[in-house]
């Protein structure tokens, strides 16, 4: 008595169709699972047995073998409970064969309830063209419906799935209205830029960073507003497009971080890991199939690293490659997984261990040696990747107590969106490149032509400050963004000047 049906497995943000084969034959009562199941998949046997018995079905005597094909692929997760249980019922004649090719997913509780699982969106996205419909937990139905045009049948219990397959009941397919989903999350600002007093230069840098997707380093004493500024950043960015939202949701679905009731992540991610974060926590990893790290959870959003020099140096250095490639390949024994990681890095640090170096009133208590050692924790190549570097000084009393008239986030958001619009328009035919921070090689020359005056200025600056080739390219990209913010076709000397200034203003502190 043999039965087969379909399920799926997530590998990073990719997914594969899995065929579940089940054979029930004579012999002593055993329940074997083959096809590289990880621990949690093997454990599902006890859940499946209990769920079948408690749903008043007959759990067959004899030898049960479940195979997950292709057999050379590691299987992880609890989503196979429901399909294996149905396969056993099918092999014993308790579920009839259907003409349709359904893909089943779901974790079983001991009483036969079907619980939600991780990774439904990637599976639905990648398998929809190979099947006729999905049978998924109610909790994941909307997620699957967004991803595919095939009917999605939500189930609550094992018995419900069995009755549906036997045509004893009808289930209304879940429909996701993409339009209404897009607007269900109204634009509300989590943090408003107007809350931050003073800091005009830092705000300007934040705006430029948001407009072009540039990395930003803020240096300043404790309590000057660095963290607050960083928290404002995701809301300054334009809303995610549908495609971007799906990309982000894939990662969150894989990580099991989707909030119930919001099947798509529409907000720009904002991740602010603590500086004690491990290597695997930052770039991804973990046992079994490596999971996404903070850099991937910040995809299309902002990764904020507060107290930058306190981070483990090895962790910071691993950021260098994903910063350039905008994705990370995690290779482990027997499996390698690629996660997208197109994030904007915002770093914050104090000028010295005590935090008051360069402060006009409070004096710094650090020795020269202390300051040097503090600075040394950040490598040159890492700092080279920060496009903008600004000082965020202590807020003077006049700003603290004076009349408060800072620009609110929505005004800045509008300017940023307009600048992004210009970039999209300019690079419309370019699939790999959407923001100024991604401009490289030929594109840099094509899009970042400099006026004569600007050229001369940049040449002098390269000589004077000893910029690397990469730094030079980054200045041109930032200048492009500044020009876009000013709605200017050409990059003029003033744009280059501001870009140079924003790159070097922090150096006053960092060079000491």
């Amino acid at each position, binding site marked *: 008595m043999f039965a087969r049906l379909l399920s799926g497995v997530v590998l990073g943000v990719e997914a594969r169709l899995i065929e579940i084969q089940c054979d029930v034959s004579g012999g002593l009562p*055993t329940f074997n699972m083959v096809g590289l199941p990880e621990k949690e998949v093997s454990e599902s046997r006890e859940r499946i047995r209990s769920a079948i018995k408690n749903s008043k079905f007959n759990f067959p*005597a004899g030898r049960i073998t479940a195979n997950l094909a292709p057999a050379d692929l590691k299987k992880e997760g609890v989503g196979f409970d429901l399909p294996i249980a149905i396969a056993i019922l099918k092999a014993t004649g308790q579920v009839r064969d259907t003409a349709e090719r359904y893909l089943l997913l779901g974790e079983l509780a001991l009483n036969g309830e079907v619980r939600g699982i991780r990774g439904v969106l990637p599976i639905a996205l990648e398998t929809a063209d190979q099947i006729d419909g999905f049978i998924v937990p109610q909790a994941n139905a909307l997620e699957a419906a967004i991803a595919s045009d095939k009917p999605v049948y939500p189930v609550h219990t094992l018995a419900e799935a069995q009755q549906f397959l036997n045509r004893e009941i009808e289930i209304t397919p879940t429909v996701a209205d993409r339009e209404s989903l897009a607007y269900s999350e109204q634009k509300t600002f989590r943090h408003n830029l107007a809350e931050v007093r003073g800091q005009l230069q830092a705000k300007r840098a934040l705006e430029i960073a948001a407009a072009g997707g540039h990395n930003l380093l803020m240096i300043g004493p404790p309590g000057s507003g660095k963290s607050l500024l960083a928290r404002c950043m995701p809301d300054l960015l334009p809303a995610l497009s549908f495609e971007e939202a799906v990309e982000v949701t894939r990662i969150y679905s894989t990580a099991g971080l989707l909030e119930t009731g919001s099947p798509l992540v529409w907000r720009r991610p904002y991740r602010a890991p603590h500086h004690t974060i491990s290597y695997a926590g930052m770039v991804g990893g973990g046992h079994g199939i490596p999971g996404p790290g903070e850099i991937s959870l910040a995809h299309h959003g902002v990764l904020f690293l507060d107290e930058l020099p306190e981070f483990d140096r090895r962790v910071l250095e691993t950021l260098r490659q994903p910063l350039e490639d905008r994705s990370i390949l995690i290779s482990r024994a027997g499996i390698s997984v690629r996660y997208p990681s197109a994030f904007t890095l915002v770093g914050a640090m104090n000028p010295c261990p005590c935090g008051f170096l360069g402060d006009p009133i409070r004096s710094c208590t650090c020795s020269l040696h202390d300051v040097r050692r503090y600075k040394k924790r950040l490598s040159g190549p890492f700092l080279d990747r920060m496009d903008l570097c600004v000082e965020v000084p202590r807020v003077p009393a006049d700003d603290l107590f004076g009349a408060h008239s800072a620009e609110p986030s929505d005004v800045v958001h509008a300017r940023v969106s307009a600048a992004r619009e210009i970039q999209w328009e300019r690079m419309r035919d370019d699939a790999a490149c959407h923001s100024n921070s991604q401009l490289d090689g030929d594109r840099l020359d094509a899009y970042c032509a400099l006026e004569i005056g600007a050229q001369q200025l940049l040449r002098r600056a390269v000589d004077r400050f000893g910029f690397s080739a990469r730094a030079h390219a980054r200045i041109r990209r930032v200048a492009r963004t500044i020009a876009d913010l000013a709605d200017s076709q050409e990059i003029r000397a003033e744009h280059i000047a501001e870009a140079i200034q924003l790159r070097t203003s922090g150096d006053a502190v960092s060079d000491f």
Partner: protein
Amino acid sequence: MPIRGDEAEERACLFLKGEGYQIVVRNWRTKLGEVDIIARDRDVLVFVEVKARTGDGFGGPEGAVDDRKQRRLIFAALSFMQKTKCELPARFDVVAIRPGSLLLYQDAFQVPD
């Protein structure tokens, strides 16, 4: 008055027959273990372990079918199926007898990995 082993097995047999089981063999012994009753429940071969206890002081009759006992039953069952070239699906049942009560546990345990 304690319940004796063969008395308990007799009661179990009567009960199983009443449940529609056909008794195949009783007290099937091998070097490493024995099965009290081997029966057929429709298309399933059933190996039945009968346990009697006068009280629950030591975990009751059910508690007596521990890992070691299960291993012996599995070994005996395996050698029975090999000897008789039986290809039926099989199952382990436990009959727990207390003074005044008899409980049948169908599919009481499975062969572990």
